[in-house]
């Protein structure tokens, strides 16, 4: 029997091997650390820094960054009311992450579930569900948001709801298209010959093939949702002051862009870094989840193509 590629011992502890694979991809490793920091800020930031972040200090209005003379809190500068930007960014992490994650997770679950049904079943639902997506797509998402939030109270939960609904078609269409292709693959037929139930075929054979694509879209969507949320705030129907999000901070800094760039820059940077980190991490996850690609990470991070 000819050569078979050597296999790394699978029994050396799941967590350790996952960490080893993460270490092998240095950018993903840094991204994971950054996301952990963001997560910690989101969890305990408001409890620690809420008082500091809302305290106005008129002498520190639009205070420039990197000036330690007014205290370390103003190292990133102060906003139009002299509130320290660093503290505000940390406090805003909670709302931002909660809304973005909530909207992305909700739309991904609902969208891909509908997509699986639409792609797998050959019945009436296979016709109806894609039309549903068309209806949502044909409706300008901002208009939908304005109407819904005008009627409902603009709370975080409602913003998540609106954003989730407008993003569902993306997942639905992608999932459906992929399922239509995967459904015809030989190994799905083989499972059917063995007598596998529909649920088993969908969740054990089809979903794992589709999942990496969905995760990649989800990370890209994360940034989209953060910015969409800020434009809602800009229109005055999103998160309301004194509550704050990164998107809202960017929007609030806009009038001062020529005189005090840092008002919009720092929260903008936070959005970019978070999205970038998610992207790097999802890229790593895609490789780590695929048995045919995993060796790239197991070989110790030597990259090829």
């Amino acid at each position, binding site marked *: *029997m*000819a050569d*078979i*590629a050597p*296999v790394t011992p*699978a029994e050396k502890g799941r967590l350790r091997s996952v960490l080893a694979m993460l270490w092998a991809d240095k950018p993903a490793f840094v991204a994971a650390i950054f996301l952990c920091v963001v997560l910690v800020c989101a969890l305990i930031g408001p409890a620690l820094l809420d008082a500091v972040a809302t305290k106005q200090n008129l002498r520190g209005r639009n205070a420039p960054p990197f000036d330690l003379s007014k205290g370390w809190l103003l190292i990133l500068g102060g906003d139009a009311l002299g509130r320290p930007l660093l503290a505000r960014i940390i406090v805003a992490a909670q709302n931002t992450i909660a809304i973005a994650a909530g909207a992305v997770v909700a739309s991904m679950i609902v969208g891909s579930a509908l997509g699986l049904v639409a792609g797998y079943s050959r019945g009436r639902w296979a016709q109806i569900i894609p039309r549903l997506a068309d209806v949502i797509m044909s409706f300008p998402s901002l208009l939908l948001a304005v109407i819904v939030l005008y009627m409902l109270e603009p709370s975080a939960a409602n913003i998540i709801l609106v954003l989730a609904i407008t993003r569902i078609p993306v997942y639905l269409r992608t999932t459906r298209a992929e399922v239509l292709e995967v459904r015809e*693959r*030989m*190994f799905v*037929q*083989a*499972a*059917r*010959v*063995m*007598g*596998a*139930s529909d649920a*088993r075929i969908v969740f*054990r*054979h089809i979903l*794992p*093939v589709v999942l990496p694509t969905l995760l990649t879209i989800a990370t890209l969507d994360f940034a989209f949702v953060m910015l969409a949320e800020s434009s809602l705030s800009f229109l005055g129907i999103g998160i309301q002051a004194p509550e704050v999000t990164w998107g809202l901070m960017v929007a609030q800094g806009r009038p001062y862009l020529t005189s005090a760039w840092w008002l919009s820059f720092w929260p903008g940077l936070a959005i970019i870094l978070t999205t970038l980190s998610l992207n790097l991490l999802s890229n790593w996850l895609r490789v780590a*989840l*695929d*048995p*045919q690609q995993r060796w*790239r990470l197991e*070989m110790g991070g*030597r990259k*090829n193509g």
Partner: protein
Amino acid sequence: MADHLLEVRNLSVTFHTVRGPVHAVRNVSWHLDRGEVLAILGESGSGKSVSASAIMDLIDCPPGQITSGELLFEGRDLLKMGREERRDINGKRIAMIFQDPLSHLNPVYTVGWQIEETMVIHGTPRARARAETLALLAKVGIPNPGQSAHKYPHQFSGGQRQRLMIAMALALRPDILIADEPTTALDVTVQAQILDLLEKLQAETGMGLLLITHDLGVVAEVADRVVVMNGGEIVEQGSAAQVYANPQHPYTARLIAAAPGKGEMPPDRAPAPPLLAVSGLCKRYGEFTALEGADFALAEGETLAIVGESGSGKSTLAKCLLRLDEPTGGQALYKGADLFRLSPKDLFRMRRDIQMVFQDPTQSLNPRMSVYDLISEAWVIHPEILPRAQWKARAAGLLAQVGLLPEHMHRYAHQFSGGQRQRIAIARALALEPRVIICDEAVSALDVSIQAQVIELLADLRRRFGLSYIFIAHDLPVVRDFADRVIVMQGGRIVEQGSVRQIFDAPRETYTKNLLAASLDPDPAVQAARREARHAAKVPA
């Protein structure tokens, strides 16, 4: 030494991959003369196509690198020529045809235009190119050239497309034609026609023909000389008849021994009560009838082969039996129950008894599941077979039965070779303890020596467990070795059925006779005799 039309000297090609350099070919030397047919014979991964790719400048550098050697065309080294000069030789002096003609014809242009274009690019005026195209189409046996020139590639059959490719390659009257597995994707009768055409054209034009193939039969049919390759090296070369009759290298001897169709045919079995009796099975897709009035029976422990060319309905038959496709009519009695009218619960139970092994194990094994997951899935679905505690042990046992190691359990399908993957697929089918296994071209995608091993395994399982097989194949020699009875199908109908001896020794139907005549024997002497007979038959007519 410049007398050879094309000479390859000490060619070594290395591919740089993440897993280190791979020496695709090492110190390969061969030559081709005018009017000669040279075959390069080898199994997959032997490097048989690499030297041809080097000649055509088709090796991607990097990752590929020609580390040493010379490619002498009429005494001049191709590797020392500039890009422009090589482009002038490629296509014009040295032309190439490929395995899959559909992917090498542009679907948005008419075939006539594409052939013309080859000539126009190399400087023929449009009007003359058109006239020559029509002459070429007639020459390669395309019916009605005037109209066919205005058709698109998808309007032709597989064999005709290969003829079109040949016409395109011959448009500039090359000195050398390289054919890379030109008939592998074709049915046997079409293969015979294409080989015949190549031979005729070569005799007319006096070009050198380089044929790359894995098929001993193709070598026997057309080659004057043969180069046998294994693992990137030439193990043997000589005249085709001499290499076959008297192989010097053990690898060549093994390869020839592995060629199917030489063993004793099994004796006719005594009639036994049928395990599965199919009658009047038909399947229509709209207006199109894929399968009509199929009647046959399968006895316990029997191997029933279904042979036929593509489109004959043999795969549709398998799919209907497994209820992957719903048949339009007919019945299939298995142990007294009609397979086509089972309740979902009974159908689920039946799944255990009738299993399938698919053609391409790369596609039929889920790439995201380990071997253990693949095999144990059977017991997840049918928990009554085996208590969970015994899964590991049984999976190890099954792997041992199909000739793999229990340690292989935690690997994934892509870490195995093609033959090993098919073994995994067989182990998975066995996990359900079936009575009948339907093999849909289960060995067609495998190399000859691997094919022989897998057939041996299937025969061994038949002896030990009394399994019955429905063995769908287009390769007659394999069927001759392995099956008890044969069904011959054509255009959705069963044209003939009988024991292996009846079909192979005394075929009644013309179609069966044609099929048998077209299938190639690995022995050049036998092929030569058949060719003689064919020509003799043609001359009076």
